[in-house]
């Protein structure tokens, strides 16, 4: 392979991709949260529904929350029909997104292996493969030999404490450069005249009875025909001001990268049992993530023993990683639901819509969320793909339990 300069395929610096205007006093739609989901929702509101008198309000800098902190994994191999519908729709959008946004996202369909380490996990995995196929999601069950052919650096020997008994394989899964995704959406939105307002924290809502008519912000009140929330781990803080309780808990989720290495890892490997997921970024860092820290927190940092455990798992599965060094670790705040599925739809308040509860796995759904949440906001009713993810499901009992497909790996 010819040597290439690291970063040679990166686009121009993001500073010139969008303006950062002061907020106007009123908009048709205000989106709370300038992360991936907020930007994608604004994009599809503009493109699919013709709404451009719109602002995306971001308390910090654009896409500086979980959109900058995730491990960039994209896949759609979830168990239940409801999830497969939403995530597969997202994956299909990913497949055309670089062209759609005319921006390099470094979207790389290098596939994902979800390892099985016990007989029960093997049975669950095969079941998930069959369920995926019935839903038109590409999936295969691989034995350890086939796993080793796809990912030679993975330790598939039988003398592991938790040997690899096989894996599910989704070839269309992969990774994208998360920052570029946000920048691509932001550039497109800016060109369409949508205000991307940074350093503008929403602190509450203006309401008339049960109707939301605007938001209060650190830069003054802003009236809005509709308010769409995409505030992830901080959603509860805002809905608490309305007395609206949501079944979400905010936890730290950590990730880490190694220093830049030669390309050694050809795919994405996830293990729910030994608790780690690993890919290698285009630039060369190994990108590792695992589960949440156990306690509720908004502190954007976690404990070292959590990443120590995750690195132990990584070294067990990839012995060669023992000689890699950790370059950087960080944390984000993720909002976790009881059934490991998101909440997207209407609220008891008129003109207020909520998208939250994505927990540890929101990045992969970004364009799908944008598409469906935009529909929900524009039509004042859920898109068929996000209708099952309503807030009401916790009362009706129609949960979408994705702990198996999402648990760690999400």
């Amino acid at each position: 392979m010819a040597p290439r300069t690291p970063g040679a395929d990166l686009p121009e610096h993001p500073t010139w991709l969008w303006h950062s205007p002061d907020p106007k006093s009123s908009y048709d739609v205000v989106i709370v949260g300038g992360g991936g989901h907020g930007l994608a929702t604004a994009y599809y509101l503009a493109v699919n529904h013709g709404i451009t008198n719109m602002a995306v309000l971001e308390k910090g800098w654009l896409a500086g929350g979980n959109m900058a902190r995730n491990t960039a994994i994209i896949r759609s191999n979830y168990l239940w029909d409801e999830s497969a519908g939403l995530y597969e729709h997202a994956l299909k959008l990913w497949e055309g997104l670089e062209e759609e946004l005319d921006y390099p996202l470094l979207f790389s369909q290098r596939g994902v292996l979800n390892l099985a380490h016990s007989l029960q996990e093997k049975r669950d995995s095969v079941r998930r493969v069959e369920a995926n196929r019935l839903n038109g999601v590409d999936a295969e069950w691989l034995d350890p030999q086939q796993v080793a052919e796809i990912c030679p650096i993975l330790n598939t020997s039988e003398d592991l404490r938790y040997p690899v008994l096989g894996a599910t394989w989704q070839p269309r899964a992969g990774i994208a450069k998360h920052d570029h995704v946000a920048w691509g959406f932001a550039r497109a939105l800016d060109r369409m005249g949508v205000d991307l307002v940074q350093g503008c924290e929403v602190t509450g809502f203006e309401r008339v009875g049960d109707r939301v008519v605007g938001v209060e912000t650190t830069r003054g009140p802003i009236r809005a025909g509709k308010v769409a929330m995409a505030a992830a781990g901080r959603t509860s803080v805002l809905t608490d001001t309305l007395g609206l309780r949501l079944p979400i808990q905010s936890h730290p989720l950590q990730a880490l990268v190694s220093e830049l290495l030669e390309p050694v890892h050809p795919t994405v490997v996830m293990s729910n049992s030994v608790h780690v997921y690993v890919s290698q970024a285009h630039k060369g860092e190994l990108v590792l993530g695992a589960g949440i820290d156990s306690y509720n927190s908004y502190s954007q940092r976690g404990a070292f023993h959590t990443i120590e455990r995750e690195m132990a798992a990584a070294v067990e599965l990839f012995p060669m990683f023992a000689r890699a060094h950790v370059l950087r670790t960080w944390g984000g705040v993720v909002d976790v639901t009881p059934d490991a599925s998101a909440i997207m739809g209407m609220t008891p308040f008129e003109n207020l819509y909520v998208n939250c509860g994505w927990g540890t796995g929101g990045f992969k759904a970004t364009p799908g969320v944008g598409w469906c949440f935009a529909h929900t906001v524009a039509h004042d009713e859920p898109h068929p793909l996000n209708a099952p993810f309503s807030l009401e499901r916790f009362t009706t009992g129609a949960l979408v339990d994705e702990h198996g497909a999402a648990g760690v790996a999400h």
Partner: protein
Amino acid sequence: MMLIPCPWCGPRNEIEFHYGGQADVRCPADPQAVSDEDWATFLFFRDNPKGVFTERWSHVAGCRRWFTVRRDTDSNRVLPSEGTQQARTVTT
């Protein structure tokens, strides 16, 4: 890693503990009698404040007892206990 004040063993590393979430969540006395909304609230809805949170911890690698802690979820600072509250167990 946080230091969690076990009322029986003293402050110990967080890794010795299991987290139990919000404190004082009571099971309805007669589950058959409550509405779907109230049952859902009991099962799934917990407070999620950015700030002071009253929560349960279990010292699984020590005395194995449950206790209640007040902690600021923004700073992770454990707040002084309010006397009898700290060592209270879940069963009354």
